[in-house]
């Protein structure tokens, strides 16, 4: 009896140790940080990374337009099956925002979802995609960040259901879903550039790919559409099974926000077009080439 109890206790301790190990926050490895430290960031190149990455779509205040989209004061609410996430202030304000961070802290947050204090960020922040970005793009982005305004608005807390309210549980999510690598098909130079823009920076799949019960992307249905997390309607399937527009029609839509029939862009995609309209024609063409190269999924 006593032996059995000891055995149960030993198994429990081992299980806790495994759980603690699995859920621990893991920052970027030393060699990646060393590579980053050796780079010089270019703020002009960083501006393109900023728009391609869609930072302003979530972190600018609700309804911001034009230059106001550079004020990353946070506050937008994002409903989900797990509760409501609220985008934090990531402006250059040293206390309310992230103005006091180092490049390494910025990269750990953006590419590993680990805060400077060593805790997890929730994956509403698409760091699993940003993990695929190059170190140079991260350095350029951080150089551009230094040119952005500071805003003193306080970040609002998330409103999540148990057990998702326990940050450490995010470690389990990362263990299951982060670190997946590129998923879509890309062969030509343009398609490869488009895949980088779509998967590493633009995170199209976050909305256009369905999720499983724990919120992980179903990579077998890449870009095949998903229920709208707002509860109303669906995010469209943008594989060639449904997105039948030509490559140039897609590229033009991403620039001026008009469909081939000159209906206008709507919903959250309005903000995406506001971002992508700031990229070059080549980059928008690359995204279109990538989308047309995907396997059609009904």
């Amino acid at each position: 009896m006593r032996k059995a109890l000891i055995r149960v206790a030993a198994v429990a301790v081992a299980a806790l140790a495994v759980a603690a190990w699995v859920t621990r926050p893991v920052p970027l490895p030393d060699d990646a940080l060393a590579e980053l430290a050796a780079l010089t960031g270019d703020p002009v190149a960083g501006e393109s990374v900023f728009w391609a990455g869609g930072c302003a779509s979530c972190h600018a205040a609700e309804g911001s337009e034009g230059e106001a989209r550079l004020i990353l004061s946070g506050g937008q609410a994002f409903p989900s099956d797990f509760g409501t996430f609220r985008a934090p202030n990531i402006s250059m304000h040293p206390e309310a925002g992230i103005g006091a961070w180092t490049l390494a802290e910025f990269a750990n947050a953006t590419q590993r979802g680990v805060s400077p204090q060593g805790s997890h960020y929730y994956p509403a922040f698409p760091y699993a995609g940003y993990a695929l970005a190059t170190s140079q793009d991260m350095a350029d982005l951080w150089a551009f960040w230094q040119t952005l305004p500071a805003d003193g608005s306080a970040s609002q807390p998330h409103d999540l259901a148990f057990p998702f309210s326990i940050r450490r549980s995010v470690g389990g999510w990362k263990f299951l879903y982060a670190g997946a690598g590129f998923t879509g098909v890309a062969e030509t130079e343009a398609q490869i550039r488009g895949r980088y823009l779509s998967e590493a920076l633009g995170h199209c799949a976050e909305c256009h790919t369905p999720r499983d019960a724990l919120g992980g992307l179903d990579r077998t249905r890449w870009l095949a559409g998903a229920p709208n997390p707002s509860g109303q309607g669906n995010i469209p399937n943008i594989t060639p099974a449904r997105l039948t527009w030509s490559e140039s029609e897609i590229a033009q839509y991403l620039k001026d926000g008009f469909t081939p029939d000159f209906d206008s862009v709507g919903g959250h995609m309005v903000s995406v077009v506001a971002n992508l309209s700031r990229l070059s024609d080549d980059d928008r063409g690359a995204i279109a080439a990538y989308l047309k190269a995907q396997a059609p999924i009904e």
Partner: protein
Amino acid sequence: MTRMKLALGSVAAIAFGGVVLAAGHADNSRQIEARNGIMTAMALNSSVVGDMARGNTEYDAAAAQSAANALAGLGMVGTGLLWPEGSSSDDVEGGRALAKIWEDRADFDQKWNDFAAAGVALQAVAGDGLEPMQAALADLGKSCGACHDTYRKPQ
């Protein structure tokens, strides 16, 4: 007498029932039809200037001007008659107007007025050459999206 009472009572009941039924089902089908038609007219006219702006067709000052005139005119239609209370996508079939419109009607009307102003601005320059037309059309496109991001139901 009893029969008379019964008959009057029945007439009253039917009439009253009819009124209740009518109140419960305000018929906004013509408003929806008009809204959808106006949106289609906007799209058709935008396509004339839009295809020129995209380089899909050659710039034609007269055609651009007449499309811009139409867009400016469509802006003058306003929102008053076309978006009555009880005509959201929760209330009626065939429309995509979110109930949010009536939660912040002033903002919705402002978005329409921004479109109307963009239409007038486009009208002023549409015949002056490709570049000024492109710039004014870009603003007009933004005014479409500014309303559709918040107030149009996703498909």
